[in-house]
């Protein structure tokens, strides 16, 4: 680790926070349906959308109708995305002449994109036509992120309102999030990336004659327009197989900084916007500080572990000065690679600027743990906020147990029904991740070294499987890429993990929103536990560590932890 490296990290984080502050007030205005500086331009478009869709924007929905709207939108999105992939050979804009995407792969990819996961069992440049990239994948990069933000604000409104029967209108939240927030920033961001060197063309590929006279076919495409929203919508599905390690997705240090900024800015801004929407900015700041601490501890571990290099290779005569370079691009450096890896899994992005599979064992454990906890520091667009609010509810419940008072959060009493719903949401994770991982090992024998399932043997192989389900369940989408995911077993189980990870989590959350909205907001009294100070930050961190480390410690011990000690002993598999 170097001082310059840490300066790079703090420079990027400072840029994120500096921009998140004005953006947070904008997000609050967009979702609270106030006037913004873009209203004169966009209001007619917005009204046109409602008119064509037959939506009355003035009519709000209760939690059941809100959930039904979200589910209907997801189902239609799934079916159209599946159809576009299966029929890509008959549609235009298929310059490389790809065949239809196979049914199990199209299933996995469709679930993946409607749930904001963007898991890649496909190799972008070898599977998907430009039409699928644009009309299928880019569209869901926008709308799945907007859906996340909509659901978060359903919960935020539940806290802001008193004795309310409605939590907003899904169609309005969706439309406003795309039109006012995601699309305008993406237009600017995509052009910035083009100036950094990211291609944006309708050509499929170009043939070059190398200096040594060989032919090199270079894949191209409309990369920049997808790249930026891929990061800012915390999506992460790459245009190319190698994702943001590919020089066309991420050509230099500047594009790398822009992309890390884009990954973090909306999640950070929406936490601050939450404080504005409930009328108490201290609450947003306390949550953001908690998230910041958890994120920075992760960055520290990854950076320290990667900068030390691989002792097995050092013993062979590799200079450890550059750290562990396997799977890394030279141009980013260890510091910003560590920040990218931690940020992409602290949010539900899952884009990578280095191959996480080749990380040192403890460095690889950080992305894994971030995802096992559900990607909530600072979390995916919207998804991070509602995920973290659920943890906050559990934390005030724990505090309430300790002092023997009915717990309350933001003026709402947390009672049996709320706790049941919060626990229902949280407990789906270990069931899906550990359940599917165990089934893969026991039923399919995926750890068998001759089985063609995994690139790595030994404990690292188990890590590849746990990582895959942690990633898909948390709707992240990054991978230990050595796992061969494009087969019937992993396409199907992975698709189910993504489905449950999104919907089995968010339906209890929306029910929780309905239940909280109906409660009377009680004013704070002397006996109220303050949820904006250092004590609450400490409590949140404690609850997170106890809740998630206890659930997953045995699995982590068999994967990255044991691999770390075997590596120190020079053992290879």
């Amino acid at each position, binding site marked *: 680790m170097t001082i*310059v490296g840490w*300066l790079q990290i703090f*420079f990027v984080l400072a840029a994120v926070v500096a921009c998140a502050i004005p953006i947070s007030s904008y997000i609050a205005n967009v979702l609270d349906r106030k006037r913004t500086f873009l209203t004169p331009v966009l209001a007619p478009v917005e009204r046109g959308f409602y008119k064509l*869709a037959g939506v009355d924007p003035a009519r709000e929905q209760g939690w059941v109708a809100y959930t039904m*709207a979200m*589910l*209907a*939108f997801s189902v239609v*999105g799934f079916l*159209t995305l599946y159809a576009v992939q299966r029929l890509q050979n008959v549609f235009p804009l298929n310059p490389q002449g790809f065949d239809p995407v196979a049914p199990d792969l199209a299933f996995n990819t469709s679930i993946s994109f409607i749930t904001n996961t963007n898991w890649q069992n496909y*190799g972008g*440049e070898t599977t998907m036509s430009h039409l699928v990239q*644009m009309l299928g994948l880019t*569209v869901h*990069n*926008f*709308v799945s992120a907007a859906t996340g933000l909509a659901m978060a604000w359903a919960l935020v409104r539940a806290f802001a309102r008193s004795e309310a029967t409605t939590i907003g209108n899904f169609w309005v939240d969706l439309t406003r999030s*795309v039109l006012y927030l995601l699309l305008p920033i993406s237009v600017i961001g995509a052009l910035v990336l083009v*100036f950094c060197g*990211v*291609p944006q*063309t*309708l050509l499929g590929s*170009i043939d*070059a*004659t*190398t*200096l*040594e006279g060989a032919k090199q076919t*270079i894949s191209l495409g*409309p990369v*920049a*327009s997808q790249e930026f929203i891929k990061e800012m919508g915390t999506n992460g599905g790459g245009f190319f*197989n*190698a994702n943001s390690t590919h*020089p066309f997705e991420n050509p230099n240090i500047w594009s790398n900084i822009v992309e890390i900024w884009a990954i973090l800015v909306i999640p950070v801004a929406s936490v601050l916007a939450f404080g504005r929407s409930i009328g108490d900015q201290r609450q947003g700041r306390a949550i953001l500080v908690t998230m910041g601490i958890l994120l920075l501890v992760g960055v520290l571990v990854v950076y320290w572990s990667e900068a030390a290099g*691989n002792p097995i*290779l050092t013993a*062979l*005569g*590799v200079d*450890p000065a*550059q750290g562990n*370079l*396997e*799977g*890394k*691009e030279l*141009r*980013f450096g260890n510091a910003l690679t560590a920040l990218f890896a931690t940020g992409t899994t602290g949010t539900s992005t899952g884009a990578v600027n*280095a*191959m996480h*599979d*080749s*990380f040192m064992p403890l460095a690889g454990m950080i992305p894994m743990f971030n995802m096992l906890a559900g990607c909530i520091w600072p979390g995916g667009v919207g998804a991070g906020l509602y995920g973290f609010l659920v943890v906050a509810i559990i934390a005030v419940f724990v505090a309430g147990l300790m002092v023997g008072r009915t717990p309350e959060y933001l003026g709402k009493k947390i009672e049996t029904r709320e706790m049941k719903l919060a626990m229902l949401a949280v407990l789906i994770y270990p069931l899906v991740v550990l359940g599917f991982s165990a089934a893969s090992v026991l039923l399919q024998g995926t750890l068998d070294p001759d089985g063609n399932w995994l690139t*790595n043997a030994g404990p*690292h192989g188990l890590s590849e499987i746990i990582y895959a389900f942690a990633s898909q369940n948390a709707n992240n989408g990054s991978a230990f890429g*050595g796992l061969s995911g494009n087969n019937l077993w992993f396409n199907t189980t992975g698709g189910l993990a993504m489905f449950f990870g999104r919907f089995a989590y968010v339906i209890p959350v929306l029910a929780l929103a309905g239940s909280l909205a109906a409660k009377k907001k009680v004013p704070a009294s002397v006996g109220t536990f303050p949820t904006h100070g250092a004590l609450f930050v400490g409590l949140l961190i404690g609850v997170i560590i106890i809740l998630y480390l206890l659930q997953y410690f045995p699995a982590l011990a068999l994967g990255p932890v044991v691999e770390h000690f075997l590596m120190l002993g020079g053992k*290879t*598999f």
Partner: protein
Amino acid sequence: MFSQIRPAIVMIVLFSTLTGVVYPLAITGIAQVVAAKPANGSLLTRDGVVIGSALIGQQFSGDGYFHGRPSATNTADPNDATKTIDAPYNAANSSGSNFGPTSLKLHDRVKADVEALGGSPEKPVPADAVTTSGSGLDPDISPAFARLQVSRVAAARKLPEARVQALVTNATAQPFLGLLGEPRVNVLQLNVSLDLLAAK
């Protein structure tokens, strides 16, 4: 649920049009006008022939050229489409090795590469000389790896080492303000300037 089906279908159609057609085509149109070179892949040409992209590494094996990092990209086996064969710097199928830190295959590959470069624990080689990148298309090497190759290239080209070393120094990009970025050498551009020097 049924009352939500019409808005669901209409919204998908509208957003597909707006974010899936209008947005990427508008960005393409603007980019092709204001920044045509990067928008088309930062291609390099020599005598009217495209020789590659400044951003994408390519395979060099001759002694007279500087070599890039090892690359883990592959391609379909022409004899058996279900298998793959090594194809370094295949810019139509980017990928890393995905070897974990305790991988025996990684150990064996690095061991062979270190030996080929004459390295040992007493005389270690730069890490980028023996590790594959995430994309398999990394266009850059470290100044240390370039220095390691100067004498080989100079001998093959029958040029004085000092002149080749000067080329490397010239081609080394330094971090912005000494802070942002890593010192690096673009291999393709270095080799183009080497060809120019040799042709003089």
